[in-house]
């Protein structure tokens, strides 16, 4: 299965290179439409009256209304502005936490030799193999015992303690693609381990760090349930996913139009964050200089 994967892609790439540029661009554009269709549907439907969202299939509304945006903005009795600010602050804190803690741990696993390294690495990977639903209750009890429920601590503190093993693993794999000769030459220069990490390895990891930042931001942005139970103390602390979750209800009147409108609004910050950080993906060895 694995061996099939690369060769299939390779032939596809080859084929793509052989087709004239115009057709290639056309394919990419067509693919783009497929990628964008749901977003366009969402935007279009956010301008439809409530009754038409499910009864009409077209993207363009027959009657345009803007009330989903105006009413949805404070549809929950609290302004959306507050929810947006809360989410952005939370996400940035989580990004910071993951960048610092995961890169430290990853450097140790990838570059340093110490007893039990493999065992600890296995434990780390195992810790993400248990589904959330099995640990959420003990975890809630733990955080309640610590007095953290109702604050952002249960959402942020774990990020500073490298609990997201996913990113540690990512950074480990990434660091291991960096030639070890670089470390050796740095160490000959009398460079300590921390300086090696901070001045040699980290700059070379910018693409992986950007990936970590992007994913942490996105996943925190859309993480619903833990934010619901831990931030529930006060609607003033609500974040975007918690707020969006309150628009549609299976037992009473829902506001699908407002939900879609506010979903569109909530996409803008993550789209912005993605655009800003994806530039960093372009950096890498080619710009930070292997030649030096």
């Amino acid at each position, binding site marked *: 299965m694995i061996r099939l994967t690369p*060769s299939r892609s390779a032939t596809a790439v080859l084929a793509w*290179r052989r087709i004239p540029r115009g057709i290639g661009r056309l394919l990419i554009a067509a*693919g783009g439409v497929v990628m964008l269709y749901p977003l366009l549907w969402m935007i279009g439907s956010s301008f439809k009256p409530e009754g038409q969202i499910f009864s009409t299939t077209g993207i363009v509304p027959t009657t345009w209304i803007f009330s989903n945006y105006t009413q949805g903005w404070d549809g929950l009795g609290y302004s959306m502005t507050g929810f947006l600010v809360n989410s952005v602050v939370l996400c940035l804190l989580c990004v910071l936490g993951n960048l610092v803690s995961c890169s430290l741990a990853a450097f140790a696993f990838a570059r340093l030799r110490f007893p039990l390294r493999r065992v600890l690495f296995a434990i780390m990977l195992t810790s993400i193999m248990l589904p959330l639903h099995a640990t959420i209750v003990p975890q809630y009890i733990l955080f309640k015992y610590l007095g953290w429920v109702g604050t952002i601590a249960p959402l942020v503190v774990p990020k500073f303690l490298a609990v997201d093993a996913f990113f540690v*693993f990512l950074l480990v794999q990434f660091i291991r693609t960096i030639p070890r000769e670089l470390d050796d030459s740095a160490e000959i220069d009398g460079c*300590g381990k921390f300086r090696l990490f901070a001045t040699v390895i980290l700059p070379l990891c910018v*693409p992986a760090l950007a990936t970590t930042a992007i994913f942490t931001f996105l996943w925190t942005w859309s993480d619903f349930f833990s934010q619901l139970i831990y931030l529930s103390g006060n609607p003033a602390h609500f974040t975007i996913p918690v707020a969006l979750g309150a628009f549609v209800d299976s037992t009473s009147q829902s506001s699908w139009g407002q939900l879609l409108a506010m979903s569109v609004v909530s996409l803008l910050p993550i789209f912005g964050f993605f655009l800003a950080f994806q530039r960093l993906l372009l950096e890498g060895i080619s710009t930070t200089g292997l030649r030096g």
Partner: protein
Amino acid sequence: MASPGVTVEAHATAPPPVADRNPPPRRRLTRRQREALAGYLFLAPWFLGLIGITLGPMIASLWLSFTRYNLLSAPQWTGFSNYSALVHDPLFLTAVKVTLLYVGVSVPSQLAFALLLALVLNRGMRALGLVRAIYYVPSLLGSSVAIAIVWRTLFGYDGTIDRIVEFFGWHNPPAWIDDPHTAIYTLVVLAIWQFGAPMIIFLAGLRNIPKELYEAASVDGARRFAQFRKVTLPLLSPLILFNLVLQVIASFQAFTPAYVISGGSGGPANSTLFYTLYLYQQAFGQLNMGYGAAMAWLLLVAIALVTAAIFASSRRWVFYMDHQS
């Protein structure tokens, strides 16, 4: 030999650079010991998180898997009864089958698609950033309620897809998402469509391949395909391993897509009853947390075995630049 406990204490007094410059007075550490000490210091936050946050709830859930626990009153020890009940539970077996099918189909297709797109989008192209962002849009949308509606409008009875295939002459096409035989594949398509995460990781990896290697390869007169096979693939292999392991773990644990698209039911007719969805239904719907915990630990064992197998095989196909075992 330094143990993790010692390291955590040491952390307060000796940050890494200091440790390197001022060796402890009692006895000189060898180079090896210093490296080990540094290793534990770098891992200190992670240790703290493991012991303080991760391990406790994990052990608690293991214990709960041997109890009858309805969340509302204290758990009661019941030994292996949850585990033995699983064997006789037809829905559990359904959930296992559905999940294996999902993992088996969606992981390879999603990774292949992500790699292909990463290779395409890594090339010079006008407005590359924009194109890349557009291709990432599906992943930005996530498995939200909004995506669920879109998916149902696309793949529902008389939906957009039906109209397209009818246009091409397929009469009476299936109701895809509402047909027990095809519903699971609409979720596979959703997974493939959201290929953004592995694609970004491949892109990051591609950027890190030194251009010199390609230059050297083309001087050798290597053709494009050979270049791909001899340079790109080996240098990307650590990230292929990463994506493979992570997608396997994530797909075994997949919950949200089936939850939002089936409205939490795993329907139609349990055809999208993912393992974790059934676990959730048991633990939170029927308040059988003990049963859910037992399911969770079985899943952990299954994932661990598959992951271990992948790692074992990786020695043969993953190439590291750091010449480390």
